[in-house]
């Protein structure tokens, strides 16, 4: 079995600083070679040997799952990139500002060939500190890009006051308190902060406490995209949990942007780790619980108009 190639997805609005970041990644002397998949091919100069243009072709899957979409062009490109593996060590996908991140993320869950050969390392979202608030008010894509992010670069911080920055951060945290947030100017961030994060590796994501600002949720501004975290201090019953989470994915799938969990199943020495995008759930038993580790079952949902009471009650009912 060959090692899976890490894939970093760069999202963010035009002008937020995505291309600056991309060119920094490519030009720094890290000794890694990247294959870059770009939209708006040829419009912006990208100095790299292997640049492939994509056309954002979203395919609806005919598998009974109404919101299950994949990026057909990405599957085709990655399939072909893997035929020239000697030329690169990692893949970066730059999406357009208007792109919905869900089909991109779902591609890495749904397509078994892509999944066998690559792993989604992190979704990195670059946002403009000055204009993000207005975008969040008028564009659902902007909210989705924040919701899907594992790492957020709050860029162009030199153009706004500290108070404004705090307000923007609060808006971001209300949507996604789990992403790593970095304040930057000219997309200037240490590359370790965005590459090889293993952010889709749940081990890391859920081991970090959510970065709530002052512990307050501010739902006034973004009534639709919210996040919630549920914890049961102990074991749950897989016989109850698995049918429930499946039902949740089917019932609330269209509203659920991302969800993740690490669960302690009764009489199971290993941790059950799951993640989902809309109706697609992926879960399996991973490493054993360590002797000094508390067996805790925890679930995180990020989505629109979540029925928080129903989700809380449903999860509580799965107690072992």
């Amino acid at each position: 079995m060959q090692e899976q190639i890490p894939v970093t997805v760069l999202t963010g609005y035009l002008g937020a600083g995505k291309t600056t970041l991309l060119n920094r990644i490519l030009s720094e002397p890290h000794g890694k070679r990247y294959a870059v998949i770009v939209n708006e091919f040829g419009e912006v100069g990208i100095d790299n040997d292997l640049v492939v243009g994509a056309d954002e072709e979203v395919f609806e899957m005919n598998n009974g799952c109404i919101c299950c979409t994949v990026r057909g062009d990405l599957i085709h490109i990655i399939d072909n990139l893997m035929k020239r593996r000697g030329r690169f060590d990692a893949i970066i996908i730059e999406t357009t500002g208007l792109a919905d991140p869900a089909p991109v993320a779902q591609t890495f869950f749904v397509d078994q060939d892509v999944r066998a050969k690559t792993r989604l390392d992190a979704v990195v979202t670059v946002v403009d500190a000055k204009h993000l608030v207005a975008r969040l008010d008028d564009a659902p894509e902007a909210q989705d890009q924040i919701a899907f992010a594992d790492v957020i670069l709050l860029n162009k911080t030199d153009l706004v006051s500290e108070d404004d920055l705090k307000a923007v951060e609060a808006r971001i945290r209300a949507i996604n308190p789990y992403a790593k947030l970095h304040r930057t100017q000219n997309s200037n961030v240490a590359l370790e902060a965005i590459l090889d994060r293993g952010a889709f590796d749940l081990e890391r994501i859920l081991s970090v406490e959510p970065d709530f600002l002052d512990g307050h949720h501010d739902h006034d501004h973004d009534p639709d995209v919210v996040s919630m975290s549920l914890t049961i201090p102990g074991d749950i019953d897989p016989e109850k949990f698995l049918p429930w989470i499946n039902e949740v994915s089917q019932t609330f799938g269209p509203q659920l942007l991302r969800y993740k969990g690490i669960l302690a199943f009764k009489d199971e020495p290993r941790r059950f780790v799951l993640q989902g995008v809309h109706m697609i759930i992926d879960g399996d038993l991973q490493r054993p619980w360590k002797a000094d580790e508390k067996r805790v079952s925890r679930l995180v949902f990020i989505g629109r108009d979540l029925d928080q009471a129903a989700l809380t009650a449903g999860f509580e009912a799965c107690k072992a």
Partner: protein
Amino acid sequence: MTASITSSPDQGPRFELGAHVLTAHFIGPLALFATAEGAVAAATPGSGLEGQNQVDQSGLVLAVAASDGKALIVAGERGVVRRVTLKDVSDIAHCSGAWPTALASGPDGAVAVAAGRKLSVWRGGETIFTTQAPSLVQGLAFAPKGFRVAAAHGGGASLWYPGQPAAEPTRLDWKGAHLDVVFSPDGAFLVTSMQENALHGWKLADKAHMRMTGYPGKPRSLAWTVKGKWLATSGADAAILWPFQDKNGPMGKAPKEIAVRGDSKVTRVACHPQVDVVATGYDDGMVLLTRLDDLAEIVAVRPMASAISALAWSADGAMLAWGSDSGFAGIFSARQSV
């Protein structure tokens, strides 16, 4: 299964090409292999690798046998389509923008190439037809008779007569993402492979649907046995053969499973040009030949820790060329075995 597997020593030469083998094709007794890094290598069973020619500096995305059998048609990363013969390499078409996504060779030197939704048909170095498909085109095929081209795309397939550019295309709708496309040898059926681990077929006379499902993986390799009696496919741990002898195709009939191996997936299939024998290539590098009459099997290539990515018979059926995704290739002499 009653047939016995006779392990024969690997017959014929084996060599390393250093890059993923996209396609193999025989011109007479000479086997050509196109690689993803842009080379076309030539080899014979007697002397092995005879030479390699870098036909595209950027690397190749697609390669298919020319419909006249006398050349390989290749498409590179920069969108240049070339005809590669034993003597020369000539530019015959190009597409701009993204990497080419589909390529097919047609009658009288025609070639169809797609990049994303853009589809063009070329002949004599000129574009004779261009159109925009409803969605990303990942498969193209020319009809066995007449001058008609089919494209597989998101939501189904479309057929055009490139000689009648004003005519409306025939649309064959079926929800989902369609990848490869083939006509049956008699031109009665069109079959696509799908992202959803299935095949979909249409009887062209009445657009009747044929659903062929149950694959654990995508069936990306499709090949017709002699006279189109069976459609052999990859995508499972066996070669799956759908019966097409009947005028309604495989509807209501079960497929035949041959060359079953529980531990490996079939990646390529190639049908012998004269007799009912199917070559099945697996993800562990093994190639098995199966005679359909009695299901007798022989091992043509032993496992080698890389997947078979190309398989092609010579026109007389005496040789089978194979290539792998890690750059190994070889020629199996089948005369004594089949």
